[in-house]
């Protein structure tokens, strides 16, 4: 089915999310929609899927004009969508999830689960998904949930499949599998709209690329365009993708975690006997798929979650048992993973947010009151230093863009002398320009001699920043490797494959340059961790 969007415009109040967008998706084509977070890709697709109504423009299917009043119309027209946040009811089984909305019944409205199961099995077998129709969705790994979503669309005979940031939640291996599935679907005649901001994936799988910036189409490209060209189109100016950081100058090992075990709020062991150490002037990146204990690890270091066992020492001081307030005072700078919930008070001003952790100490406190002048001076300095785009220090932080909000958080945490800096997902949902800036800042902090821990689910970011990489899987550290370890090895480790096996496997099925083992880590910063038993 050929899909054409002509002059789609969608406004939210004064904001123009989509500005006269034209897009043509040929039958059996994988069409990548490339753009930064907030460029308007998802809005466009929600318009196509009938979730939003366009203010202007038309949608043509095989040359015929169509209007969708809701997802029901879009589904009936053969458009399927896999949302970035899966639209699956966690407590339903796979069969129930797939049948929802177009149920087979035995008459009288009674569900015909047998037919639904058979349908799931058929589709699953055809594409080699290996789905169990009776499995409960919430028990499945994200990669499998995504397949359920795809089967959901296929069960409704979707001719055009929209995949909204499908790789954001996947391990590199799962991403490869997904790319395989996309090719299979394409061969079966399905058109695919592939929404992403990851250049490598686009180059690997797309037939055509349309780039969107600030709600408008800024160009199209072929998959043989270079990553730099694509990035430039996406951002609108020249960007340097590589961060040229000097090799680390290591100082003493001042931060040591030993045998740390943490349980999450539901009582599950989220961090399971983790040990590692970081030296001054070194960046340790904690890599892993979301939800493998990274959040709990950082929260335990900060003292928000109590540790069940183990110790955390910073410059010789035991942190376990101390309150977050005291731990921060001991010299920890902490960038939480969700700036909107944990990093900022959105209704507070930029200036207030910049002193959230220091409002009660000099020079900001004066008796029981605040020294508003000091607050303002501090705000003006930080805004200038970090190039925070705001109307002024009195603007509410919630009104800033994601990148600028993140700059506020990082500026606050880095504006006092630190003994340890931890940043979780430091550039999630941040525009490419700000990513570059934030990365430089983090490296600068390292070069100033602070031990740095970065938690990131983005392998690109990990590769960019890390001097060493600790890979977490199901609450444990699978291994700690050098910063230049090949992606294929890291990817396998992120799926729980132990280091040795991961190297073997990666060498077996990868092209030669990937086969090289990671460079030895000879930093001597790892003396505490050599005792791990073999798998």
């Amino acid at each position, binding site marked *: 089915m050929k899909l054409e969007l002509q002059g789609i415009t969608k406004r939210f109040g004064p904001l123009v999310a989509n500005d006269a967008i034209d897009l043509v998706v040929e039958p059996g084509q994988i069409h990548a929609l490339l753009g930064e977070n907030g460029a308007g890709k998802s809005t466009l697709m929600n318009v196509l899927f009938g979730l939003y109504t366009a203010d202007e423009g038309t949608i043509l299917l095989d040359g015929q004009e169509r209007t969708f009043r809701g997802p029901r119309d879009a589904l009936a027209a053969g458009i399927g969508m896999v949302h970035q946040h899966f639209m699956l*009811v966690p407590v339903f089984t796979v069969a129930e999830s797939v049948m929802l909305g177009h149920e087979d019944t035995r008459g009288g409205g009674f569900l015909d689960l047998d037919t639904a199961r058979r349908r799931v099995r058929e589709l699953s077998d055809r594409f080699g998904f290996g789905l169990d129709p009776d499995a409960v969705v919430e028990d499945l790994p994200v990669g499998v949930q995504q397949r359920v979503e795809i089967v959901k669309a296929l069960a409704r005979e979707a001719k055009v499949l929209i995949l909204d940031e499908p790789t954001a939640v996947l391990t590199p291996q799962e991403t490869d599998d997904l790319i395989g599935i996309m090719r299979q679907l394409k061969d079966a005649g399905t058109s695919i709209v592939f929404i992403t901001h990851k250049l490598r994936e686009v180059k690997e799988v797309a037939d055509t690329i349309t780039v969107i910036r600030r709600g408008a189409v800024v160009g199209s490209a072929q998959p043989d365009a270079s990553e730099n060209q694509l990035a430039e189109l996406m951002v609108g100016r020249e960007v340097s993708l590589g961060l040229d950081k000097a090799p680390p100058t290591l100082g003493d090992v001042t931060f040591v975690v030993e045998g740390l075990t943490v*349980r999450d709020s539901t009582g599950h062991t989220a961090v399971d*006997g983790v040990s590692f150490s970081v030296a001054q002037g070194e960046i340790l990146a904690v890599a892993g798929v979301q939800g493998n204990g990274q959040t709990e690890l950082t929260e335990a270091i900060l003292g928000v979650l109590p540790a069940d066992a183990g110790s955390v020492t910073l410059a010789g001081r035991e942190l376990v048992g101390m309150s977050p307030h005291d731990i921060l005072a001991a010299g920890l700078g902490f960038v939480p993973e969700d700036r909107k919930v944990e990093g900022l008070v959105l209704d507070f001003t930029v200036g207030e947010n910049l002193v959230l952790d220091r409002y009660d100490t000099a020079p900001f406190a004066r008796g029981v009151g605040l020294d508003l002048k000091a607050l303002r001076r501090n705000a003006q300095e930080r805004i200038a230093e970090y190039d925070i785009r705001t109307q002024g220090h009195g603007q509410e932080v919630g009104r800033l863009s994601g990148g600028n909000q993140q700059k506020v958080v990082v500026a606050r945490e880095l504006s006092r002398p630190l003994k340890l800096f931890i940043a979780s997902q430091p550039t999630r949902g941040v525009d490419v320009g700000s990513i570059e800036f934030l990365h430089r800042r983090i490296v600068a902090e390292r070069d100033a001699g602070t031990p740095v821990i970065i938690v990131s689910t983005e392998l690109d970011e990990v590769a960019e920043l890390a001097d060493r990489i600790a890979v977490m899987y199901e609450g444990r550290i699978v*291994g700690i*490797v050098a910063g230049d370890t090949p992606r294929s090895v890291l990817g396998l480790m992120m799926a729980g494959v132990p280091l*040795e096996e991961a190297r073997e496997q990666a060498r077996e099925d990868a092209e030669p340059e990937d086969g090289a083992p990671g460079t030895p880590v000879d930093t001597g910063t790892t003396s505490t961790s*050599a005792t791990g*038993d073999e798998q």
Partner: protein
Amino acid sequence: MTATDVAPARPAPSAAVVGRTVSYKVPVALGVLGLAALVLFGLLGPAGETTTFGVSGASDLVRIDPLELPSRATAVVLSVVALLLAAYSAVVARASREVPVWLVTVFGVVWVLAFLTWAVAGKSTSLVSLLQGSLLLAVPLAFGALGGLLNERAGVVNIAIEGQLLTGAFGAAVIGSVTGNAYVGLVAAPVFALVIGAMLALFTVKYHVNQIIVGVVLNVFAVGLTSFLYGSVLKEDAARLNSPPRLEVLPVPGLSQIPVLGPVLFRQTIIVYLLYVAVVVVSVALFRTRWGLRVRAVGEYPQAADTVGIDVERTRWHNVLLGSAVAGLGGAFFTIGSVGAFGEEMTAGKGYIALAAMILGRWSPVGALTAALLFGFADKLQQVLGVLQTPIPNQFMLMLPYIVTIFAVAGLVGRVRGPAAAGEPYEKG
């Protein structure tokens, strides 16, 4: 491999065992209760007294003689059985398994029997009328809980059960009285409750007002409205407006002759039979039909339902209206189902107990009915023992239903998960 494989930091074995811990909470609680029963009801119980339990009514075909039991010996035996059950639960817990529900239930029954034997020592009471009364008192609770879960399964919290019961009771009384027909009153009850339901749906579904606040306000509104009408209209002309006939008892032929259970289950009014039907129908509909699947999807994850073309708002509207009608039916019990005339605030917080029954029953119709029966039993027990002049002060007995509610909801429920989206307004996009 020459690379120095830094730190495959496997945990020490001791740290790895942390996963699931053995919990002795339930066995300990059961053990303490069992011991208390043994000492208080058994060993310290009245010596030489007899406890008499009636087990058949006067009109039964098969008459069974009342059970005459030696109070102390019986209580001791029952307490020992309870203690054995507690011991078995410890064995189960030791194996890191969850103590099964049946075990707790059987323990509860045995314990209550031991208590009754002690409390009724030297007197007599009818088990049949105790159970019959429990079922009757459970009726409004069960209807209320069903109404509540129909709402919550679609994602709307229904605090307004109390108001729906009250308006239902009012409607049944007035319409039943005017028409002189209790059955017309029974039909009127859900219609009156729909007024409350419609307002709940309007504010929560259409205007996204906080569901708890709307529910509480509607309860206050229902009390105010019915009290006003009662004071200003019903009292003036009570003979015409507030003297409805009562629903008559309709024994089911055959079934009602079964000893003990027959009179309890099948010698009731139509409203009780309707409850049986409602529980079965709602169960099947919710878990076996297309309608149910969609309702549950809306209550768990409305966005997901929306993206497959299910109209979230309409589903919620329908369910709120349906739920309030079901709760209203329960309201009819207060007037035409029992005392007849309507009285101010006569539901006396039963709507909130119904809410507790729904949660204790884990949002399932059968569970809700079971929980309602538990609360109904506690209520009836209090009435019976109040009349019997037992050693326990009457005030404590009056507290019984509420104490049972608190313990049941806090203790037995543990971590349950209701519909994930209950209480959250759905705004598109």
